């Protein structure tokens, strides 16, 4: 896909700025602090993942960068311009988390509406719509109403609508939420394709396993960034160790783990328990678990271990 539309001279000056820049963003909704000094940057052409549990502030962060909410403090900039600058809207695509298209309009009518809102010439619209329908495999459903689409097909339509004007920056809020595994994989493949073509993509997700598909991730919790970096580097820098607990009576083992301060996180993994333990604390834990008939087996730490232990550490 062509991802570098012609830009005016005035815009070119801001080209040195990062694609997205959040500086000390804060916003409260009543008693809830959604953003608490959130700071991060996304370089041009980067695929950046905003990862965190529900309620971490991911949606508010994306809306702030789309210029859709008032901020109590901080500054959100896109392509060097203020996030709510009118000129930015032509160059940014947004795919909101909730249903945001027109249910009573068909796939084709929704696409046509957004192409007119972006004032695309008819031929340009035809060419792009055809390609987007092919990529998303929505072609056969052109006349189907949006409210009759499956969750995955709807998300693809929303993506197509956000891509019609070939934005330089794409903001996606939990695009894979409620999507089956096959569609989810397809969606990620598409995102990689776009980034390969030069687009900047910011994607939020509550799924830790999806973080590994990003060029860089930021772990969000309680409106702030806890951790940031490329996935391999983050795992390599992991200070704690991951183990599987095998055997023993589940209730008594869990009680013992909860009592032990060096256990950062514990989560069930099938029949077993997967735990994150402070470096060097494993032998002692193994001794206290032995009377319960349980043993420790080391496993390679992954993202979930890393994030769970950091969030637990933060919340404690």
């Amino acid at each position: 896909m062509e991802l570098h539309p012609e830009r005016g001279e005035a815009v070119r000056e801001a080209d040195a700025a990062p694609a997205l820049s959040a500086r000390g963003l804060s916003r409260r909704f009543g008693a809830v602090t959604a953003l608490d000094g959130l700071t991060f940057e996304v370089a041009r052409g980067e695929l950046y993942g905003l990862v965190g549990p529900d309620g971490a502030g991911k949606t508010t962060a994306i809306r702030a960068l789309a210029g859709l909410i008032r901020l109590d403090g901080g500054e959100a900039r896109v392509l060097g311009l203020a996030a709510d600058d009118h000129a930015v809207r032509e160059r940014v695509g947004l795919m909101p988390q909730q249903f945001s298209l027109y249910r009573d309009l068909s796939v084709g009518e929704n696409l046509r509406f957004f192409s007119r809102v972006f004032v695309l010439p008819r031929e340009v619209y035809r060419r792009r719509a055809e390609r987007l329908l092919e990529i998303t495999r929505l072609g056969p459903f052109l006349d189907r109403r949006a409210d009759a689409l499956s969750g995955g097909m709807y998300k693809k339509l929303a993506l197509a609508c956000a891509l019609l004007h070939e934005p330089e920056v794409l903001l996606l809020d939990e695009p894979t939420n409620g999507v089956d595994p096959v569609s989810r994989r397809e969606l990620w493949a598409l995102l990689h394709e776009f980034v390969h073509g030069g687009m900047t993509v910011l994607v939020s997700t509550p799924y830790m396993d999806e973080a590994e598909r990003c060029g860089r991730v930021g772990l969000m919790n309680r409106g702030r960034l806890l951790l940031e970096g490329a996935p391999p580097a983050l795992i390599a820098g992991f200070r704690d160790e991951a183990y599987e607990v095998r055997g023993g009576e589940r209730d008594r083992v869990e009680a013992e783990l909860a009592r032990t301060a060096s256990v950062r996180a514990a989560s069930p993994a099938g029949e077993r328990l997967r735990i994150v333990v402070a470096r060097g604390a494993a032998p002692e834990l193994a001794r206290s678990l032995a009377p319960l008939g349980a043993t420790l087996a080391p496993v390679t730490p992954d993202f979930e271990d890393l994030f769970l232990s950091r969030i637990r550490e933060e919340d404690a």
Partner: protein
Amino acid sequence: MKGRIRRSLVRIYAMAAKEGRHIVRDPRTLYMSLGMPVLLLFLFGYGVAFDIDRIPLAVVDQDRTESSRALVHALTASRELVSVGELPDPAAVLGAFRQERAVAALVVDEGYERALLAREVVPVQLLVDGADALVANQLLAKADALVRAESQRLASAEVGETTPPVRVKVWTRYNPDGRSAFYMVPGLAAYLLAITAVLLTALTIAGEWERGSMEQLFASPIGRLEIVLGKLLPYLGLGLLEFLLVVAFGMIAFDLPMRGSGFALALLGLVFLLGMLGQGLLVSVIAKNQTVATQAGTMSSLLPSLLLSGMIFPIENMPVVLQHFSRVIPARYLVHGLRGVLLKGNGLDVLWPDLLALAVFALVVIGLATARFQRRLA
């Protein structure tokens, strides 16, 4: 600059075309804007007729002479009052009122004819059920005129032709029969247009908030005024169609005359609709959800249009405070203007103050709606 305007027009068109699709696909909108008004007009037009007709009259004739029968005949000859039979004595009248067998009763005392012949002033009693003040008032006026005519006839029969010192020749123009449909239908048209137009648009912006599509719209380059105008256009078309339908229906079903020009009529409807649609937008910009928008829209259009427009209650009879308040109710100007165009054949030379008032209202509410319409989700 020219390119910017063109781009803006494309976006307004996009919005209007989309909104048009919503209308066509939602039978409720079509029913509300086209079906309901005609239905209501039909019910109101026939039901809310204030014309006096076939009012049941009880007669207590204690004289039982030719003269007394002549009086009863004089009252009931026009069929506006209908005799429902004789009652034995005046005490029975209240019973007839309570059972609603009669709304009025004529009591002729014994000695009526004798007194007439003796050229004395003869008291005749008319009892009226005042529970329905409107009927009672019209009835009194009617009965008074009929009795006066009868006594004039008696007097001239007695003394020969008399020439009263002052003779008023009444010439009622525009609605000589005093048909209530002639002034009710323009009022109803204003009332129906007011509620449906406000409701129609009150639902649309609130709907965008509720459906979540506002987020996608705000992230796009479409401007607030473009959204507002794009939403107004299709509803304006629908509203004009409704206006046409209501007036045409009034002409066909109630013989409503159309003495003015179609242009004046259309202009009046257009400017009024703009204001009402703007009011609906303002409501929905503030309400952000369809339930609240519906209630606020109905309350802000239905009651003032019904009570303060002069449609039923003459503005001149209102307390001074309400008279002033009625000046900001657009329906007042439409009712006044419509009666002028339809019944008197008024042209723009007479209509312009009404048109001006409506235009000012439209500009203010659309301006307020755009200003209050924040391009923010939270």
